[in-house]
């Protein structure tokens, strides 16, 4: 919004750099990228983040095994202690201590694994049971001690009673006592005695026999039985404690927890793998897309470049065409200007010729008439004849002057060739003379003209055009000479096919870079307004149209020479006309 407001809010200078535009597409891409990264983090956390130290778990399980072993050892020790009636159960204390230590370790190790609630509950249950088992073990130990004492007492009493009976010899009684003793012994030894009723029957028999020893025996048997019953009760309690089961349960819970965890991690890993694969595919697709767009871009670039090159070439060609067209146009313009100039000159000459020749006609005629009249006058005196002679002389001068004017008009007519045919056989020497007369005022008194004319055949040409060429070169020569100088004009037949005209001055000459351009239209070294720059381009074109050549040789300070070469015979197109004129005579 801010950007767009900035862009539309009137004139803003072009910023040095621009933020990437927040287009809908860019926003969507940004969100997609964020989601992809978030999902990746989540999956990573899922597969690795909640994984407890496997060593700790292993240690906990180890401790669990130890606990199970200890529990089994305790059970065994208790059973063993129950059977070894004569001695005190000695290993129990150490075992109890180890179990206590183990309990603490287990607690600590499970606390380290931060297992689930099921594991915690199982652990708590086991710890409870284990604690109670420990306390029961203490009680049991005392009971065992008491039972062992009672059993020993009973054995002593039985020995005593049997000894007594030996002496008295009451065999029946003796058998009874013996049965009682063996029953009591069996009762004491059996873990779950079943001969309680038999024992009670025997006891009552013994009681019935009376005697002191026998009563003591019965009493000890009864004490033993009571102790045994208490022991049996405690043992039942002891065995009833579900330590092994809860250990089993704990183990199962822990394992289950681990399994679930593992399963979850596994699932995470699989999902991660799938996701990675998907990402990989996405990246691949992106890469392919990028590759494609790059190659598109490359191709577009190449096309653009080639188009650019084509364009440049086209522009170069067009520029060349245009400059050619411009040159042509300039040349045509120059020719137009020149032909217009010549046409105007022709019209002017025609008008001037008539307007001058008419007064000149009667003036000249009248002078002649007057001279005739004067010469025919009858002789007067000396003085009169003298005045007459003087007058005749003056009139002769007047006539001369008028002849000069008449000649000038003729020269103008000759030069412009008004109403003359455009092309005809023409002697270039005549053209040179005609041009010399026209530019006489530029040369007169200052520049000496050397004429070295060879004998030339009349060549087919446009005389008016060649006259312009000659006049132009002579005028240039006159302008190149500052002060007195020499203009040398020579003609000759150069070879069988060409005549040659040389026009040389000893003027200021030209630098090579000027020489290069002198035949181009509108090129001039003169000040603005003094020259049109058309002269030599017209000269060049005229000579070219005549199938001739023009060359220039010039050195600064030494002068300039133009050499014109023109064909003697007409072009082959009109050759038939020339040859068919050949006569058989």
């Amino acid at each position, binding site marked *: 919004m801010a950007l767009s407001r900035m862009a539309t809010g009137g004139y803003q200078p072009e910023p040095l750099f621009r933020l990437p535009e927040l287009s809908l597409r860019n926003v969507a891409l940004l969100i997609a990228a964020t989601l992809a990264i978030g999902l990746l983090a989540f999956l990573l956390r899922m597969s690795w983040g909640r994984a407890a130290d496997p060593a700790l778990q292993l240690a906990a399980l180890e401790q669990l095994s130890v606990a199970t072993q200890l529990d089994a050892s305790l059970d065994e020790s208790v059973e063993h202690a129950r059977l070894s009636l004569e001695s005190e159960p000695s290993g129990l204390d150490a075992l109890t201590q180890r179990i206590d230590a183990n309990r603490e370790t287990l607690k600590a190790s499970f606390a380290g694994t931060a297992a689930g609630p099921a594991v915690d509950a199982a652990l708590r249950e086991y710890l409870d049971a284990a604690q109670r088992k420990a306390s029961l073990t203490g009680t049991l130990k005392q009971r065992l001690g008491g039972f062992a004492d009672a059993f020993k007492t009973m054995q002593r009493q039985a020995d005593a009673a049997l000894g007594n009976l030996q002496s008295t010899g009451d065999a029946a009684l003796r058998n009874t006592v013996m049965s009682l003793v063996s029953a009591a012994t069996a009762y004491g030894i059996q873990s779950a005695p079943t001969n309680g009723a038999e024992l009670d029957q025997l006891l009552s028999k013994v009681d019935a026999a009376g005697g002191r020893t026998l009563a003591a025996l019965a009493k000890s048997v009864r004490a033993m039985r009571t102790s045994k019953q208490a022991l049996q009760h405690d043992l039942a309690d002891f065995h009833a404690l579900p330590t092994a089961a809860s250990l089993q349960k704990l183990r199962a819970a822990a394992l289950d927890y681990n399994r679930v965890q593992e399963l979850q991690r596994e699932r995470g890993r699989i999902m991660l793998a799938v996701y990675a694969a998907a990402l990989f595919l996405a990246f691949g697709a992106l890469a392919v897309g990028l590759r494609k767009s790059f190659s598109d871009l490359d191709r577009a670039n190449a096309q653009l470049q080639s188009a650019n090159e084509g364009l440049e070439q086209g522009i170069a060609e067009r520029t060349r065409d245009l400059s050619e067209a411009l040159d042509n146009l300039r040349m045509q313009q120059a020719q137009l200007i020149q032909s217009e100039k010549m046409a105007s000159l022709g019209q002017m000459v*025609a008008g001037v*010729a*008539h*307007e*001058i*020749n*008419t*007064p*000149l*006609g*009667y*003036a*000249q*005629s*009248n002078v*002649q*008439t007057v001279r*005739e009249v004067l010469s025919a006058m009858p002789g007067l005196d000396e003085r009169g004849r003298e005045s007459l002679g003087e007058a005749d002389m003056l009139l002769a001068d007047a006539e001369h002057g*008028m002849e000069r004017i*008449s000649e000038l008009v003729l020269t103008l007519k000759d030069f412009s060739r*008004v*109403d*003359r*045919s*455009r*092309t*005809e056989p023409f002697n270039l020497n005549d053209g040179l003379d005609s041009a010399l007369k026209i530019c006489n005022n530029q040369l007169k008194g200052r520049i000496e003209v050397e004429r070295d004319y060879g004998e030339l055949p009349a060549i087919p040409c446009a005389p008016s055009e060649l006259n312009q060429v000659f006049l132009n070169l002579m005028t240039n020569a006159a302008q190149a000479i500052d002060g007195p100088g020499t203009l040398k004009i020579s003609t000759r037949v150069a070879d069988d096919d060409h005549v040659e005209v040389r026009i040389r001055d000893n003027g200021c000459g030209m630098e090579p870079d000027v020489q290069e351009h002198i035949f181009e239209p509108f090129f001039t070294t003169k000040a603005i307004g003094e020259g049109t720059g058309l002269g030599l381009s017209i000269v060049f074109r005229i000579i070219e149209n005549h199938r001739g050549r023009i060359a220039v040789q010039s050195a600064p300070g030494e002068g300039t020479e133009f050499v014109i070469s023109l064909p003697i015979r007409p072009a082959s197109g009109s050759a*038939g*006309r*020339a040859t*068919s*004129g*050949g*006569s*058989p*005579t």
Partner: protein
Amino acid sequence: MNATSPPTSQPRVLFIDDEPRVLIALKVIFRDHYEVVTANSGAAAIEILQAQSFDVIVSDQRMPGMTGIEVLREARRLQPKAIRILLTGYSDLNATVDAINEGEVFRFVAKPWSNEKLRATLASAVEAAATDAPPLPADAVPQADTGSAPSSAVGVLVLDPDEQTRATLKGTLGKERPVYCAGSLDEGLNLMSTHRIGVIVSELMLEGEDLPLALGALRRHDPSLVAVVLTSEADAQRAITLINQSQIYRLLRKPVSDQLLRGTVNLASQRFTTLTKHPELVRRNEIELPTEPAAQTVAVGMLARIKRLLLRQTA
């Protein structure tokens, strides 16, 4: 013409120019020898021509209202006997060609003129006009180009360097009269020595030849010869030379229509016939020798060459 000529022995000359000073100058020069009448416009001249007859009519070309050619054309209609001269400071190409074909002028004199030369020109004009003979029928008979003319026997020489043009001309003219074709002057002279030729139809530009000079020489040799010149590159200066030095009958610009060419050649043939019958009439077309000495030499040389060729054949 029933014009009333004053009873005087002096030849009558009419000068026409819009510049009165020219007329005055001319009058001063010629009043002693001729009876001089002047007019300062074409219209005035026509008026005078309708009333009086003249031997020589001299007119300027560029005049307001009516050009010199128009005046001379009218004069030719009114007084065919009178000799016509154009005296002008400048005449454009068309006027000069018209001076031949329509004005049938005797001379073309440029201003400023030399009194001496003008006197000579006028003298020869007066002499030409003095040939009192039946007027040339061709001059005023426009229907002369209708076929069946008995003059068909007059031979025509076609002189043109281009073979195709020769063939075309022969095709156009050949039905009514014998036509001989030549590509060069020498060839033409050969033909003239062996055939009776009265009319020459020639291209102006002959390779290496000066046609006005050659025609002049031929006319000198056979004055009754009638020349029709064709050209594709009309040139005022040449036209003037053709008037003064060749007295050609017509100057036609190429391309020429068949009808015009046939008509012109018919007229030329009749003219030849008339001239042969009345040799004195030839004087009306007296030609002038070139003025420059060099050209004169060439002209004499040309004449000698023509004579040599023609005589060799006849000998």
